[in-house]
């Protein structure tokens, strides 16, 4: 199977483990990703917040190149890139004048844009390939699936399964043996856009999310967005500070979780790069697997 | 100045009543339009329009209730569908479809009716007299 692929800036840097886990995973699944040639940044989140046309034109360049490459779809694992690419596609499809204007700026023809696929939809579509390869079912690991904003909204662009009570992340996690918990803050914003510029607000929002996940009994938070990840992972010590009983809560990319269930090498997937150590979690899972194997034999 | 002759086919319940209102409101209108009253735009056979041109009209107005307001609940939808086809037919036969105005005028839209009458008259005046179908003389 082949898909178009747009890694985006974060996956080359702060979200390296997202990239590493995704690439390890697709290799194991025998799925080929064709990277969009010479892609540029999608502009999130400053471009559209300050200049609407710029917020459309930057991702439109990527769409035009992908189209020229003959790609029917593009997997955009980063939720922010996904939102910008899908948003730009939606806008130029709905506004012929804008489409003309953008094509003129780009000096490239714009036809029908490729379908933009987020990481959750990507994994969902691969579940028939993934499930037979699950060798280390996650032993009911309690996970809090965290959607955040960019995967879900705006609904008219993302058409995610449900804007208020989505289920697709839970479906993917449950399919590999984890137990998704019911919790309240799944679709709240973590504030990552202000991570640098208004850190205090971000600490407050992140703390509310982590507290709620813990209250629901989660052993890990699962995300599909590098901004959410860097926020909840890197800033977690500050979020937990002064909170009685706030133990470290690992934050996993959904690709990492699926990879673990498939028995892929944690190091190859970059699990050592996390700020909140994933080691206790890995230990718990390997013990569980050992016990399970013992029972069988 | 060329004074075009225009036949208007209007429904009894909306446009005819709207035209009455325009009269009651004494809204000045061009004298070029002759109204033929029908129960509903649904009753209007495209042949009526053809007949009007054949008789020497330079333009035709068809007007009825707004969509959803038809006195007979859906006659105007049937009419609209039929006239879409009819317009294509006109282009095919060579009658400039600009010579036919389709509009919705409700019983409360006296002013709109006056605008339709005056606007259509101006437009047909600019188009000039209807000279018959191209090639009709040879056929005759």
């Amino acid at each position, binding site marked *: 199977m082949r898909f178009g692929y747009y890694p985006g800036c974060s996956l080359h840097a*702060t979200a*390296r483990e997202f990239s590493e886990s995704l690439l390890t995973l697709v290799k194991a699944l025998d799925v080929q990703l064709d990277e969009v040639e010479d892609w540029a940044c999608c502009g999130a*989140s400053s471009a*559209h917040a300050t200049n609407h046309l710029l917020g459309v*034109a930057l991702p439109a*360049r990527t769409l035009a190149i992908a189209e020229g490459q003959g790609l029917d779809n593009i997997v955009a694992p980063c939720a922010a890139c996904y939102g910008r690419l899908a948003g730009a596609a939606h806008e130029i499809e709905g506004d012929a004048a804008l489409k003309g204007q953008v094509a003129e700026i780009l000096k490239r023809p714009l036809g029908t844009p490729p379908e933009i696929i987020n990481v959750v939809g990507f994994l969902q579509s691969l579940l028939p390939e993934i499930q037979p390869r699950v060798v280390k079912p996650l032993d009911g690991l309690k996970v809090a699936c965290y959607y955040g904003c960019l995967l879900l*909204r705006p609904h008219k662009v993302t058409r995610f399964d449900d804007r208020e009570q989505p289920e697709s992340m839970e479906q993917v996690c449950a399919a590999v043996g984890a137990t998704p918990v019911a919790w309240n803050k799944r679709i709240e914003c973590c504030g990552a856009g202000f991570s*640098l*510029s208004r850190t205090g607000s971000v600490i407050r929002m992140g703390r509310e999310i982590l507290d709620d996940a813990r209250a629901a009994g989660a052993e890990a938070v699962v995300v599909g967005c590098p901004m959410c990840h860097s926020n909840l992972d890197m800033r977690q010590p500050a979020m937990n500070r002064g909170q009685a009983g706030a133990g470290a809560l690992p934050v996993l990319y959904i690709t990492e979780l699926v990879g673990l269930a498939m028995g892929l090498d944690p190091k190859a997937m970059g699990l050592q790069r996390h700020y909140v150590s994933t080691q206790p979690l890995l230990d718990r899972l390997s013990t569980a697997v050992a016990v399970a194997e013992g029972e069988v034999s | 100045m060329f004074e075009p002759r225009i036949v208007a086919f209007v429904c009894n319940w909306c446009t005819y009543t709207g035209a009455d209102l325009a009269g009651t409101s004494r809204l000045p209108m061009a004298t070029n339009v002759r109204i033929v009253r029908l129960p509903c735009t649904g009753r209007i056979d495209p042949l009526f329009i053809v007949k009007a041109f054949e008789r020497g009209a330079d333009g035709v107005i068809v007007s009825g209730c707004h969509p959803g307001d038809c006195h007979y609940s859906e006659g105007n939808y049937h009419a609209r569908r039929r006239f879409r086809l009819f317009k294509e037919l006109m282009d095919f036969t060579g009658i400039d479809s600009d010579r036919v105005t389709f509009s919705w005028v409700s019983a409360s839209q006296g002013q709109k009716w006056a605008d339709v009458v005056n606007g259509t008259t101006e437009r047909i005046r600019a188009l000039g007299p209807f000279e018959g179908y191209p090639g009709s003389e040879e056929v005759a």
Partner: protein
Amino acid sequence: MSHSEHGPPLTREIRARTGIDPARCYQCGKCTAGCPMADEMPTRIQQIMRKIQQGREELLEDPSIWLCLSCEQCSSRCPQQVEPARLVDALRELAMERAPGTAPRRIGAFHTAFLEQIKLNGRLYEFGLVLGYKLRSGALLDDVESAPGMMARGKLALVPTRIDGLDDVRRIFEACERRDSSSEEEAK
């Protein structure tokens, strides 16, 4: 008469830029009720909507418009589909054109540094972003605990990646910025 002809100049401008009619807002406040930044914004999102309806120009200098995270929860739940987040984007765009420098220092610095990175490299160079941001915002000593960690984890590249089609990107910026100044002239 079309809708774009109604209302004070600011209202008309927002309507023209977004295609959304602010008059649709009936002030139910569901946006504010679900806004994660509501407690920190001096002017709450529902009040911003009201001020757009009234055409209150001082909105362009209101720091509240820079406190929106674009999380779109308001747009998602707005019963009237007014899309407050989209309108705030348009306010920020206008503010950048007409009242540059009114964004709170740190937030403005972030956006400027971010876009500068894209203009320079075509992609985001996060180390450059952090550096640029800190120089502009004066927040030099924040995050000293995390940045070294990022390097150690291989999460900050020290050298930027530059794309081949940098000309494309620069042209996009020029075209978009040109449109800014031309619409500014129209406004005058």
